[in-house]
């Protein structure tokens, strides 16, 4: 009983308004997750360049444990596991943002570390030689130069994290993928709906890439 597949474009037009609600959540989770993730990553990345052994090891522990475990497990641990230990409910949206932040932070930390270490040692020496403290040299001299070098790999990570938000279906956050699932549960048009969802993700990732290219050009050393 080979079914006859016929493509129904009208399904796509009907799905779009509903999917746009999901997209809002996807964008919201991605933006907040990455802003927090960047802060975590900056701190942990600086930790990996620090000579303070405690700071260095704490950052190492964070990076290794997050990079070494699947995001899916982290999501479920935060949403289903932590509430039992803390004896409090974690709203799915907060759990989702938290998971994306903690996960991206570990990868961003390595980007930050690599960029900082790629700056010539002479820059630190020159900064120190005019009497700047280590901290001020980092702030005014090393960081601005390192930040430029971070942009391409950060773009990569931003795109990965955006796509990773689709894993949050397991905790029922109403983001784009979840919304797609819900529509299909009603109309069974998997082909049209997943195609639309895929194109929407593509549009989002291409937007990120474009924004970062503009940022990179703006920060270029003239």
């Amino acid at each position, binding site marked *: 009983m080979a079914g006859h597949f016929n493509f129904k474009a009208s399904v796509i037009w009907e799905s779009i308004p509903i999917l746009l609600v999901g997209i809002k959540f996807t964008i919201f989770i991605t933006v907040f997750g990455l802003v927090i993730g960047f802060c975590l990553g900056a701190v942990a990345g600086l930790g990996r360049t620090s000579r303070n052994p405690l700071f260095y090891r704490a950052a190492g522990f964070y990076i290794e444990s997050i990079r070494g475990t699947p995001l899916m497990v982290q999501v479920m641990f935060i949403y289903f596991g932590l509430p039992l230990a803390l004896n409090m409910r974690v709203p799915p949206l907060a759990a989702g943002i938290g998971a994306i932040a903690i996960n991206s932070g570990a990868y961003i930390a390595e980007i930050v570390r690599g960029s900082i270490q790629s700056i010539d040692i002479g*820059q630190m020496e020159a900064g120190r030689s005019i*009497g700047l403290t280590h901290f001020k040299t980092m702030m005014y001299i090393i960081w601005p130069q390192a930040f430029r070098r971070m942009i391409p790999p950060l773009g990569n990570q931003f795109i990965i994290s955006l796509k990773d938000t689709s894993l949050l279906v397991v905790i029922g956050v109403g983001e784009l993928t979840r919304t797609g699932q819900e529509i299909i549960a009603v109309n069974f048009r998997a082909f049209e709906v997943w195609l639309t969802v895929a194109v929407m993700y593509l549009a989002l990732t291409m937007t990120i890439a474009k924004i970062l290219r503009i940022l990179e050009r703006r920060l270029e050393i003239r």
Partner: protein
Amino acid sequence: MIKIRNLHKSFEALEVLKGIDLHVRTGEVVVIIGPSGSGKSTLLRCINRLEKLTSGEIIVDEYDINDKNTDINLIRTEAGMVFQQFNLFPHMTALKNVTLGPMKVRGISRREAEQLGMELLEKVGLKDKAHCHPNQLSGGQKQRVAIARSLALKPKVMLFDEPTSALDPELVGEVLEVMKTLAREGMTMIVVSHEMGFAREVADRVIFMDEGMIVEQNTPRELFTNPRNERTISFLSKVRSPIE
């Protein structure tokens, strides 16, 4: 101005400085020559503690640089450093390179700092390049900006670590001219360099270092025309061009 007593410096098992004693008077210009690996640069870098001493004592302008109570950032403003590779900050204009120290270390206002910065850039002949980024400057111009950047902290002594070694030959002169001007104005200077002409013209004293020790020191005239130590003679015969 600078008193160094029995300075030793090791990098792990490798002993680079093996007991250096050196006094530099205020206003004196000392040129240090010697083969590569002889410890010249390390000695210079120890003076503003870019390298930690293994043992010994360095006094800069009455401050013991190894004393825990000494503010090392203060010492570094007193002893300006000029690097072989310039190490200008590539994301800042020439003027910003010069004003960063006065503003962030001394805490003076932007207006004052920029006025000082322009004066110093004029002094090194680069007033018209104030708003250029380092990648728009030639090597000689970069090094002159680097000198201005150090001078902006009003140091009492200037340390030059092979300031012309990374330059194309035709750009060496402009940097040496700036250094000569400083010397004439009475700046205390320690210069690691192979510019024998500069040493002969400007130095009050030339020091020959080899294998982590000061082998011989004298006025340039004496050291160049009448070297006493075997190693000095051998070194000088190698670096002198046949025309001289």
